[in-house]
């Protein structure tokens, strides 16, 4: 190769690149794949319950979701922790919120994984 002129070498490289292997599908490949696709379409990727829950969440606007969540948290706090305690220990609110979020996250993750797999 070292004895070739640069333009000859370029031509050889180009023609070799043009002869790189191509893939030819076997005769029945498309039919087999179509059958696999049909089988796949019969299997729901996500369980119906999860889809319904997702649809409900999608239909709720962000604002509605935030207001609902705020009311829920306020109601829960008023019920669980007396107002005087909150005034005395404001840090408690952050800690309680953090722990509640963590537990909710873990619970939702576990629930999702259980339903999907």
């Amino acid at each position, binding site marked *: 190769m070292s004895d070739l002129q640069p333009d000859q070498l370029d031509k050889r490289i180009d023609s*070799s690149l043009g002869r790189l292997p*191509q893939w030819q*599908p076997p005769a029945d*490949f*498309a039919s087999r794949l*179509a059958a696999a696709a*049909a089988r796949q379409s019969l299997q729901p*990727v996500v369980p119906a319950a999860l889809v319904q829950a997702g649809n409900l969440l999608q239909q709720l606007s962000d604002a509605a979701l935030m207001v609902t969540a705020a009311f829920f948290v306020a109601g829960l706090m008023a019920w669980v922790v007396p107002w005087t305690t909150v005034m005395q220990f404001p840090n408690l609110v952050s800690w309680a919120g953090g722990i509640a979020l963590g537990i909710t996250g873990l619970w939702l993750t576990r629930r999702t994984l259980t339903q999907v797999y």
Partner: protein
Amino acid sequence: MNADPQQWLRRCAAGEPVACRQLVEQYGRMAGTIILRTIGRRDLVEDLLQETFLRVFRSLPDFEGRAKLSTWICTIAQRVAVDELRRSQRAPILVHEEHDAADPANIEQEADRDATDEMVRAALSGLPEKYRLPLVYAAIDGLDYATIATMLGIPVGTVKTNVFRGKQMLRERLEATP
């Protein structure tokens, strides 16, 4: 082939065998060649192409038509192949393919050509992925720079630069070959 492409895609998404078969027949060869040139192993192409098309059928409802359908399918094929390449952590070796029995008068010429092809493929296998992939994709008929750019997620200008630089590196390596 199909009067209404949208309807055809909806039928594919629903898993209708005839529509799915037509889609594979139309784009299978190109997607398979992309996979073959990315991983360099013919024995894995069928499995990876099956994975590609199952992903395509599953994702068809989300296909918004912003890119061409062919570009979208090629991109999925390329990602499936690159994932496999990284999983296996093997350097791709583009296999030498046997040609039909040559005309005796051209045997020497054929042998010379095969030897060159072999050297080019060996040199290609040693190129960094950044240069090797644009170079081998650019040599596929019907795959333009814009499609390659979308597949690789880089600007068209970068594809052209990498193809040019890749050829330059190939030339340097071949010149160093005795």
